[in-house]
């Protein structure tokens, strides 16, 4: 019982630390730092070339997660690896804040599945 309590509080602390580690960044600073991203992902975050993901309106913390994964090698992409190497944790927060703040074409699947009655598009 005591062990369970200890484990639980340990887990809670970890969860809190994980949340706190991914903070919201500064949009204006992010815009300046994101200039290198524009060539592929578009200045408006809506990549035209279909091989590159659209970032506009994507979740802030998901973009941060992706950048951290590129940085530590969990996610492997030669181009992104090079760019992300130059970004500090603060840069990652700021760039993610910028792209997630843009109006985009992305959405969740809500309303888009069979049976939702919105008609196939």
């Amino acid at each position: 019982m005591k062990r369970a309590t200890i484990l639980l509080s340990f887990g809670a602390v970890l969860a809190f630390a994980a949340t706190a580690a991914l903070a919201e960044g500064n949009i204006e600073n992010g815009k300046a730092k994101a200039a290198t991203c524009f060539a592929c992902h578009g200045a408006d975050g809506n990549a035209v070339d279909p091989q590159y993901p659209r970032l506009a309106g994507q979740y802030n913390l998901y973009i941060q997660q992706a950048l951290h994964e590129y940085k530590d090698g969990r996610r492997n992409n030669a181009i992104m690896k090079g760019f992300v190497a130059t970004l500090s944790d603060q840069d990652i927060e700021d760039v993610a804040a910028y792209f997630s703040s843009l109006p985009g074409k992305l959405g969740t699947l809500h309303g888009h599945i069979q049976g939702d009655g919105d008609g196939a598009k």
Partner: protein
Amino acid sequence: MTRLQLLGLTAAAALFAAGAHAEGDKAAGRKLVYTCNGCHGVVGYENAYPRYPVPKIAGQNEQYLLNALHEYQSGERTHPTMGAQAQSLSDKDIADIAAYLSSLAK
């Protein structure tokens, strides 16, 4: 002249390759994404650990989606849930899903 013909042949081959890259079937994709909806259809739904929202995928670019699903399938990109999901998909399923999702751009 021979070089020119060779160039033409290369161009034709490239065109053919582009055509052979099968267009996905959106209607079939719409049925397949039923499973994806469990996580990707819930606004702000979060991955358990580490905690971050599962990405918005409706309206994402087609080739990126194709690459992502194939990478999850091969293990090049790792995520427990996505790895398992991708295992159950055929190449055609992946093409259909990518075609449907990319067509949802707002």
